[in-house]
């Protein structure tokens, strides 16, 4: 099994191009989770995440020669495709405007563990906190949201994120910075300075 997991994505893609069904299945099982989660985080909709995951791999089945290894990893290529499909579907449906996590049963269908019997209050507080974070992410403008989702939730490097988002590394950094600042504001932490302390302008602080 160790030998199987060592096969790189690019090799699996080549085998898949030759009609190897096992290679396709392996590639799908390896990458579908990240794609599904990415769209789920972007849209908050499990059905949309399912549709996009299926569309991405269907596109890979139909035309698997569009991937250029010199432009980034296969994982980034697939996430880029997922982003493209997700944005298209989101624009079409605008379903993500409603940020209720339970509208299609996706957010409470098992991803959260049952309340801890030892400390139910802290567990509830944690869930509430997670719910707030999720709502805050979904309310971000698209380009900030995708930067946060790719870099913070999926922990991709700036280079890979730039490949997925189709922009420069500098743009990714600035979008991420701005997106995080908005999240801090939405989560109530922005500009909270203790009483009696004046807000400090960082441009003037030369400490």
């Amino acid at each position, binding site marked *: 099994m160790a030998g199987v997991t060592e096969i790189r994505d690019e090799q699996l893609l080549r085998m*898949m191009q030759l*009609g190897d*069904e096992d290679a*396709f*299945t392996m590639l*799908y*099982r390896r990458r*579908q*989770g990240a*794609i*599904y*989660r990415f769209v*789920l*985080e972007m849209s908050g909709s499990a059905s949309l*995440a*399912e549709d996009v*995951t*299926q569309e991405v*791999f*269907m596109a890979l*089945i*139909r035309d698997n020669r569009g991937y250029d290894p010199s432009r980034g990893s296969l994982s980034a290529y697939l996430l880029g495709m997922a982003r493209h499909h997700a944005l298209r579907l989101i624009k079409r449906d605008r379903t993500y405007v409603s940020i209720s996590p339970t509208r299609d049963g996706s957010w409470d269908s*098992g*991803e*959260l563990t049952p309340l801890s019997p030892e400390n139910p209050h802290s567990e509830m507080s*944690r869930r509430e*906190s*997670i719910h707030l*974070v*999720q709502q805050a*992410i979904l309310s971000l403008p698209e380009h900030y949201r995708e930067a*946060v989702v790719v*870099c*913070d*939730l*999926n*922990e991709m*490097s*700036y280079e890979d994120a730039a490949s997925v988002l189709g922009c420069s590394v500098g743009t990714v*950094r600035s979008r*991420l*910075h701005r997106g*995080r600042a908005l*999240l*801090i504001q939405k*989560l109530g*932490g*922005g500009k*909270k*300075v203790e009483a009696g*302390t004046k*807000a*400090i302008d*960082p*441009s003037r*602080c*030369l*400490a």
Partner: protein
Amino acid sequence: MNCKDFESMIHEIVSRRAPDKTKQLEALEHAGRCLWCALRLDEETKLTESLQAFARTLDVQRAPARVEEALVQAFRERTLWEGAARSGLAGKRLWRRLSWALAFAATVAVAWIVVLRTARVHPNSSVPPPQAANTAISPTRTPNPSQSNATEDPDKVLLQVQADLEREVPEAVAPAVLIAEERNEILANKEQTKTTLGKGEK
């Protein structure tokens, strides 16, 4: 390091992506001296923890099994379709080659039939005997000893030529035979005229 530098790399510090440890230590040292930057670092750290907690809740999320089933089915169909398309293409190429071969064979066969028929109609046309040809064209010019008296008796010469032609090249020199017949007729007319004139003188 000042607050601007700190702010520009705060995300790398929190997510531990700082380019080198020295920079990170400098940033933390700065946060120890600057209240604003200490608060910013605290905010960013809390946000990162919240985002990581949220991401952990989604770690188990996967596309449903039906998606995989549908995709595997689509992959099988696509593979079969591509295989059929490839074999169809090969079949088309084979058929095209076969058509060319058949056309070539038909052309060769037609040409062969034409040659055979031509040879049957004109068996010696390709190499006509020189004597017969020359005789047919101008029988009186041939300095043949056996025909030395032909100038004296053109009827005999013509009959001889005609007999020779019929015997040797009956078909190949048919036009020559016709010419000889015409000449024979002219000579006969001439003879008749002479006879008529002789009777008139008498």
